[in-house]
């Protein structure tokens, strides 16, 4: 699926979800989203990094510098407590919307 079709807010939710397990760097997040959505979403750097910086400033994410698998200095993002509750609340919302959408589409 092309990036432009990502719903507003969807990218945030996907990023939060990817980071729920462990801290990751930008490229890792991008790969993770791609894997978990079976390649449906391919998040480009032009969207990913502005989103990461925005969420970090909003206090949902925190970051620290660490070493990547290529032994290069990389910035690792992790969920903050606010980010975690945000993830919960956003997931619930999303589930409600997708249920509603599904039932609307099934209706004849």
């Amino acid at each position, binding site marked *: 699926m092309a990036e432009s079709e990502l719903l507003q807010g969807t990218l945030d939710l996907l990023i939060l979800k990817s980071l729920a397990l462990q801290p990751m760097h930008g*490229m890792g997040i991008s790969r993770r989203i791609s894997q978990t959505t079976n390649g449906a979403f391919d998040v480009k750097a032009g969207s990913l990094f*502005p989103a990461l910086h925005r969420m970090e400033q909003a206090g949902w994410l925190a970051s620290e510098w660490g070493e990547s698998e290529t032994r290069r200095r990389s910035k690792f993002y992790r969920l903050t407590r606010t980010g975690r509750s945000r993830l919960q609340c956003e997931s619930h919302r999303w589930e409600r919307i997708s249920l509603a959408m599904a039932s609307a589409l099934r209706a004849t």
Partner: protein
Amino acid sequence: MLAAFFRNLLRKKQTEQELDDELRAYLELTTAENMRRGMSPEDALQKARRDLGGVEQVKESVRDVRVGVSLEILMQDIRYALRSLRRNSGFTTVAILTLALGIGANTTIFSVVNGVLLKPLPYPDPDRLVTLWETHPTWGPFLTVAPANFYDWRQQSTSFSRMAALDPYPDFILTGRGEPRRLAGAAVTADFFPLLGVNMALGRGFRATEDHVVVLSYSIWESYFAARTAIVGTGVRLNDEEYTVVGVTPRDFSLVSKTSDFQARTRFDVWTNLGLASPPEAWTRGTHPLSVFGRLKPGISLQQAQAELDGIARNLRRLYRDDNEAKGIAAVPMAEHAVSNVRTALLTLLAAVVMVLLIACANIANLLLTRAAARQKEMALRAALGASRKRLAQQLLTESAVLALLGSGFGLALTLLSVPALIAHLPADLPRIAEISVDGRVLAFTTLITLAIGIVFGLVPMVQSPGVKLNARGVSSGQSSLRSALIVGQVSLALVLLAGAGLMIKSLSVLLQVSPGFQTTHILTARLSLPPRYANGYQFGTGQHRRISVFQRALAERVRALPGVRSAGFTSYLPLAGTNNNWSFFIEGRPPNPPGVYDSTDYRPVTAGYFETIGIPIRRGRSFEDRDDEDHALVVAINEAMARQFWPNENPVGKRLKFGDEHWRTIVGIVGDVHHQGLAIAPVPEMYIPWGQVPNVEVRPTIVVRSFIEPASLTSALRKAVAEVDPEVPMDQVATIDQLVYGSVSEARFRTAVISLFALLALFVAAIGVYGVMSYLVSQRTREFGIRMAVGATRGAVFALILRQGAKLAAIGVAIGLGAAALFGRLIASLLYGVKPLDAATLAGVSILLAAVALFASYVPARRAANADPMDSLRYE
């Protein structure tokens, strides 16, 4: 969040470095992954770069979401704007100079409007203050008040917390300190100072029942009483009577009023107690000297007060039919009343100066458009490097804001210089001049127009290039039409201003051609004040007037003997000097008027020689002679207007009339009409009484001297002659007759001069605008003209093409301008004399002038286009 803000702001370099590292790591990781998938290192890196989609764009979009970025960008934009303005110093100088002039002129005029019209009056709770007037359906809506009526209003009304009256007539002569000096006095009731909330600089105000007490003005206290604080409680001799000083008004206290309110007095030197604590004598309902002020009680609206006053007026009409028939009461907010004469004129000037600014702004907008066209490449480059449209708009706005700020900064400096200069040239009868200053409100006004200019100018180039195009060549048709619209707007505004100025100039010239009814050159006038011994114990018919007559004859004799003097005479109410009096009379043999209806005319005591000296012609009968005194038959002269009104079909000479007493007076002469109250005000019926026969004492003669030589040069000789006859008689208000005539139209002259200046400025600026745009359009079409000429068009045809385009725009502008000028004319109709707001000759004249200037402004570019070498213009691109 806040932490992030400061981090971003303070550690900008580090943040940038980190972003760089982050993206580099991303690129490297992606490349590594690609290689794992079996790509060659080069292919892997290339694919990773493609996926990233441009490091700079990603950075730019990350920067955009950063907190605090706006401030940082702003600083950067301001630096950039200053740099780019410096680079285009020609453009910058012209734009800032134009803005500075425009904003400076606007702020200056607004300072005047603010001080005179907008500032609250300089008293506590000024919006509760009203002035109260008697009204009469034929005599006018704002008549001064009879003491007894004032007393009843104050007793019967409940809407006012205080009501006070002011009698502006008492004059005091201060002697024994060098030259005698007349002090302008006002008698006020005890409520007057508390009503205005005046806190005395020294001492106190008046108590209701005390007499022979005086409050000094601050300036008199300083100049004549050496600012002695011990003055309070001591006595001063005024008019041969002992007064006790009880207080000194504060330095900044002044009574806000219009000149016509108090017989041309705009300041008072001493204040005495009018009393009126108890009911005044019955007769005091027949004379009307008082100005009345009220302070509305909290919660009472003007309408409620007016309704109550209407009821009181009804009651007084019923009770005192002789004096109050048809009389009403009007309450007018004090602030509104004081400026009612000048409001329209000032607002007109403000409108005019705003139009000048708009015309000037149109020129700058044109310059900005040209600059924007030249900068399209730069903008396109920035857009390609990832700058968002919003970001570019922000930068353009910053540039125009910097421009507007610099312009208004210089404009404000200009204002600070020009306001004092302007105050010196304001007509003296403009109220509240002392309150004109550059205050917070003026600064707010400047800020507001600066903001508006900054935003509009910033948006102009954006309107012109919706979605910055990568292709930087050519001019969109949208830009040409915006420019054309600017020309049309400029031309139409300039026409409105020219029409306004033309109408006012014509009006003023008509006004100055009005013959005032007397000679307007070679006359010197001066006001004399006779000490009380001339008037004490005065009673008509007892010969006491001879004291005044002796003084007048002795002085006239001396003055006539002065070299260069032709004749001299005295009058009590000089034309165009702002003083007046009006008396009622009865005509012999006419049936009595119904109660409350009076025949009355303006009333002027004069001496023999007055008519001849000032040049009022005798139309019929005779002039006054020295023998017209108490010992001889009582006589009167009337003017033609009075003859027409009261004896329309008969010869008034020989007819008799009398005042309130039993003395019949015979009309012996009919004299020419005089514009007494102003050139624009038609002559009214007037009667003249020989000074020696006046029924009431008149102690303020104005001497009128006709000379063969420059009249002002006689001043010191005249002063000496007065001192020789009586050293205790002060002489002031010295003016030549042409000063009086010119002074009477000073307000009209002032506004005509200012609006004419603005109109010329507008014409000049609009001409530059037309020239600039036509030149630009020609330069844009050089190639087209080259082709036209190459395929056979003559130079004449190209010339005509350009000129036609200029003419078309000018014609549209003139047409719209004529419509707007008609509206503007209606607004200023009340300022015009003897010329209609839609004066065809004026409108045609200014249209032709403007069209000619616009055509000339297009002529130069047109000739340039026609003279261009076609090959050059083809090679040009």
